[in-house]
């Protein structure tokens, strides 16, 4: 009897504790709590000096929903606001430059900031650390969007052996699956048949291209420089090698990696809706 009473008391105490914890969970989830959870779970040591910081809004704001994107354009923010997502997590800058520095007397900057304020939004950049995660979520995500995961070579998420396809057909497929407009640019003969692909999403320095192109038939990049990788790819083709370089645009190449980020965050933040809000291909071209 004595024992069971003690047990009862213990059980009641546990229930009370649990009740307090439950009550705690009902207090709103703040942007800072989401950020803390990401920092703890991303699997990359957090660098406090990186540019992954809040760019606008209040860290203590209650989060009603999370939108994840490669670039927090006004179009993305307005779509997020419609879906009641007020924490926007972005890979690229939001205020028109690498440091997201304020622009004095600029009407576009002022209007964007005002939209963010009116909608109680918080903009958090999360690029450096998501990029540093292993295996590379950008190559993984791009391959998944292209339905190529089954073609992966060994444990390298950037390399794939496709069933033979012409560069022309491959480009059409990429354009369709990535919802491209005018952002895709190609070096190489559309009739060339290719199998081995290397994915280089983002901005690719020459050193990475010098390493990748000799070992594959076609490299799919975000953006590269015309006097570097583009000329190297041209010369590779001229030398008689049946190869090519496809640039899909930086944002378009990175968006699948941020879709993957949204999937990951759903498991980490079950309290609020998490969705990917793609920025899309920024470019168009006149039809002449």
């Amino acid at each position, binding site marked *: 009897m004595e024992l069971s009473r003690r047990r009862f008391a213990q059980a009641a105490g546990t229930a009370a504790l649990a009740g307090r914890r439950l009550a705690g969970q009902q207090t709103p989830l703040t942007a800072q709590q989401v950020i803390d959870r990401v920092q703890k779970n991303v699997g990359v040591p957090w660098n406090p000096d990186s540019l992954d910081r809040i760019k606008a809004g209040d860290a203590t704001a209650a989060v009603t929903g999370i939108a994840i994107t490669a*670039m927090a*354009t*006004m*179009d993305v923010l*307005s779509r997020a606001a419609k879906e009641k997502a007020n924490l926007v997590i972005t890979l*690229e*800058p*939001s205020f*028109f*430059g*690498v440091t997201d520095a304020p622009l004095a007397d600029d*009407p*576009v900057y002022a*209007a*964007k900031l005002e939209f963010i304020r009116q909608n109680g939004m918080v903009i958090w950049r999360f690029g450096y650390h998501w990029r540093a995660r292993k295996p590379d979520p950008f190559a993984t995500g791009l391959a998944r969007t292209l339905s190529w995961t089954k073609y992966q070579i060994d444990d390298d998420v950037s390399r794939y052996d496709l069933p033979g396809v012409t560069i022309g057909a491959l*480009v*059409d497929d990429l*354009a369709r699956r990535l919802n*491209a*407009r*005018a*952002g*895709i*640019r*190609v*070096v190489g003969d*559309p009739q060339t048949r290719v199998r081995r692909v290397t994915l280089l999403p983002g*901005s690719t320095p*020459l*050193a990475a291209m*010098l390493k990748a192109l*000799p070992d594959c038939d076609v490299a799919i990049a*975000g*953006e590269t*420089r*015309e*006097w*570097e*990788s*583009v*000329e*190297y790819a*041209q*010369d*590779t083709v*001229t*030398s008689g*090698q049946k190869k090519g370089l496809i*640039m899909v*645009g*930086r*944002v378009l190449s990175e968006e699948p990696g941020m879709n993957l980020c949204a999937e990951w965050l759903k498991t980490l933040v079950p309290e609020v809706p998490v969705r990917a809000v793609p920025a899309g291909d*920024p*470019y*168009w*071209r*006149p*039809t*002449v």
Partner: protein
Amino acid sequence: MTANEVVERIKKNLGMPWNEKSYRDTFKVGDPNTEVKGIATTFMATLDLIQRAQAAGLNFVITHEPTFWSDRDTVSELAADPIYKFKTDYCARNNMAIWRYHDHIHSRPPDLIWVGLARALGWQDRQTAGSRNRFTFPQTTLGALAADIQRRMNIRALRVVGDPHAKVSSAAVGMGFGMPRVTPDADVVIGGENPEAGGQFDDTEYILDAAYFGRNKGQIILGHAISEEPGMEDCANWLRTFVSEVPIRFIRSGEPFWSPKA
């Protein structure tokens, strides 16, 4: 006449001191004492361009941009690269010499690359007084302006940002790896090549957002080659005023890309 004699004559006719610190304007391929049969001026000494110059009997290539895929034409890491070997072997076998002419063509007034770009745009008479890179034109739409430029410059992979219906009448123009920063007094920024995001100033995101707020702003990205190639024709014309011993031709290295139907 040797390749080096051509270069010395360029230095003499420049009308301004030669910057000996320029790492760009130097020989990249071949012996400076190579005997010149003919000169090809071009935007970029791609392997394809070198082969076409050789076929035309021109063994001295004067190129605006690099030969070996980096601004400094750094070749120390390229010894094992099969394309590097192919390109250097081809040049050696065919007695080619390649010299880069970049910094001084830009710094000598008038910058011939700039002259070529303004001509290719058809905008020689539209320059805003007192400003080198500002142009004004009768009001049109961003879509019509872009279509006109696309036709004039014969561009396959043109890229445009902004509302095609935006009414525009002024532009700030850059060339090469240069995109003017958006300012209140230019409706459109036009340039060769720029990082899409994460630069010092990201015109692309700014224009997207300006368009969202209904502002008449646009960005037209020509391509690096498209923006700077025309000026190398002016370079050939200039060379002919003081080099008469050998044939001189402007040969297009051309737009490197194709683009699927948008």
